[in-house]
């Protein structure tokens, strides 16, 4: 009956990560569908813009990055809200992890189940948009380095809007401006490759953005979550 038994925090942490990944891939599966959104939204652009290969090639890195942003936000929408609405956020608050652990686990799970697949799916869209051959490497590299920032920043927005019904769209407003630096450095790296200059400085800046997002994002998320639970 004593609560003083030692608990393995690592095991709790990974149970939560594991749960969230399973939920993301289960019924209604957030992950597969975010990738679906990514594909469909990117393929709408040629309809809108017309089929000329040079124009498409010119805008390809920008469009892929912008749509990656949008689809990551779309799937972030319910990052905390689902747990808040069904009461499991209350349970998690009483778990040995503490809110910081909870937020970290959930962001990790989101990145792994949703944003990472986006990065890996991007080359396929490059073909659709006629991306030059030498740009594929930097595209994937920039997405791999930059996407954790998307999950982390998005987590702040998701936590802030958790108590608001129809938070989804409000979140876009809060989040998208904060995504701008990631977007600029990410596209910068790909464009550098296209124009045959060195993408490394851009990637380094991108990495720095992700690190900052890591620290600021997690703490801001925790503060916002504690607020929502009151």
């Amino acid at each position, binding site marked *: 009956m004593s609560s003083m038994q030692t608990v393995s925090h690592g095991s709790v942490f990974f149970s939560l990560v594991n749960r969230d990944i399973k939920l993301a891939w289960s019924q209604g599966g957030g992950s597969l569908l975010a990738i679906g959104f990514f594909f469909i939204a990117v393929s709408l652009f040629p309809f809108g813009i017309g089929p000329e290969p040079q124009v498409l090639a010119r805008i390809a890195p920008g469009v892929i990055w912008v749509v990656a942003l949008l689809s990551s936000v779309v799937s972030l929408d319910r990052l905390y809200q689902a747990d808040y609405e069904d009461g*499991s956020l209350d349970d998690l608050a009483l778990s040995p992890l503490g809110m910081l652990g909870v937020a970290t686990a959930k962001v990790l799970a989101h990145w792994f189940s949703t944003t990472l697949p986006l990065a890996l799916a991007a080359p396929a869209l490059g073909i659709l948009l006629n991306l030059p051959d030498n740009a594929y490497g930097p595209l994937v590299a920039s997405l791999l380095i930059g996407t954790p920032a998307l999950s982390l920043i998005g987590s702040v927005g998701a936590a802030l809007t958790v108590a608001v019904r129809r938070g989804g769209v409000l979140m876009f407003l809060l989040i998208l401006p904060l995504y701008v630096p990631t977007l600029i450095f990410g596209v910068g790296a790909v464009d550098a490759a296209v124009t045959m200059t060195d993408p490394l400085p851009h990637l380094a800046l991108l990495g720095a953005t992700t690190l900052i997002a890591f620290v600021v994002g997690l703490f801001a998320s925790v503060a916002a979550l504690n607020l929502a639970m*009151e």
Partner: protein
Amino acid sequence: MFDGLGFQAKSGDFVSLTGKNGSGKSTFLRVLAGFIPASEGAMGFSVDGESATGVARDSFLMVGHMNGLKPAFSLRQNLQLFSRLMTGRHIDDDSLLEAACTFGLAALLDESVQYFSSGQRHRSALTRFCLVPRQIWLMDEPTVGLDAENRQALAGLIQRHIACGGIVIAATHDPMGVSGQTLNMDVFRPTGNPSVDEDWL
């Protein structure tokens, strides 16, 4: 908020919170669990002599109006998950079956929670108290939607817990069938106007 509210609970106590709708029972439970910060002075709740705010969060187990179940998972998965998230340990099938039997859910273990009736969901949520050993149980209207048989099972469960030195605090409108202190929240409602104090800011 809760002017003059104060009570002591010690090992083996059952406290039932009663009071009109809106008298603050649910809010009070959330204050106890530490979700809502309370100004120390206003509330004199203490557990085993220690002030409530000093009690570690992981002494508590709570069930509120929502049930914290994931409809995509089966009942078995939900219970396993809850146990792992709260203790870090995997629960073996025998203990799981035993826990599920408390509220007669054994036959539903491998069904998806999505299709449970409201009472079945609520019983699934109550089963958590059989899974994770913690000292202080906070229950918000635990009898809601239960049939007669399961109300008895609940009373039995609570009785066993307090017999082992646990503490149970339950907000309820129904008689719980367990004897203990009763705390009528109506008494503590701020009488008259909330004072608009110059020192308020």
